[in-house]
């Protein structure tokens, strides 16, 4: 009994130390991150699930998002993508690769003084749609471009 209590106390102590570490080190209120690393979304195994975890279900198709990516990628390990959003007030751009084992690649936040443009190089396991979600004024817009992959870039 006593021993269990000791173990419980010890682990409680450890976790509170961790919490303190996060509070002082990573997430000082003065420079809190605009983007949270959304573990649930990153671990989602299909697009619908990832979008739901991101709170971006049913995005509206938009012609104002430009995705520049090769039609055919020789090497799935490095697929360059340029994304520009001409939607006024774009706060965030989110990239998903539909057929990757974990489709959600990442989000980019522009609210604090960057123009809504980003260049990123991603891995693609197989030919797939590249899906871009732009968030503006709380609304989600999407554009899709298909990229064919000759050699996949996920395993190796």
């Amino acid at each position, binding site marked *: 009994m006593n021993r269990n209590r000791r173990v419980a106390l010890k682990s409680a102590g450890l976790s509170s130390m961790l919490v303190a570490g996060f509070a002082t080190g990573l997430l000082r209120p003065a420079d809190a991150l605009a*983007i949270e*690393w959304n573990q649930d979304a990153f671990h989602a195994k299909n697009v619908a699930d990832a979008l739901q975890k991101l709170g971006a279900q049913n995005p509206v198709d938009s012609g104002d998002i430009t995705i520049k990516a090769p039609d055919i990628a020789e090497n799935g390990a490095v697929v360059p993508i340029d994304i520009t959003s001409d939607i006024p007030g774009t706060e965030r751009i989110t990239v998903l690769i539909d057929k990757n084992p974990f489709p959600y*690649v990442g*989000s980019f936040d522009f609210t604090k003084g*960057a*123009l809504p*443009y980003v260049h990123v190089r991603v891995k693609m396991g197989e030919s797939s749609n590249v899906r871009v979600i732009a968030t503006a004024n709380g609304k989600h817009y999407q554009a899709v471009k298909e990229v064919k992959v000759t050699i996949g870039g*996920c395993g190796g």
Partner: protein
Amino acid sequence: MANPMKIRAKLEGDVANVRVLMSHPMETGQRKNAAGELVPMHFIKDIRAELNGKPVFEAAISQAVSRNPVFAFKVKGAKAGDKLSITWEDNRGDKRTDTVELGGA
């Protein structure tokens, strides 16, 4: 300690065109080494750029970003002499910050 980033920033009017190359393996956790063992996940999770100490661009990314990641982005309201610093942090808690001074137009 990780290798330094290569940061190139070019001013066009008051917009800084920034291109950064980070040195990182970005392991997906799905690749096997020569001995047939899975290589554990090791990837950059968070990126932040600051202009003169003020955050201007942030990203949260996954292991699906290519090895030795390259990013480009555009920062408004920049001028020559401004300091642009970029920080990344990976899933093992390793961090790196590099800073450049923006050149003349």
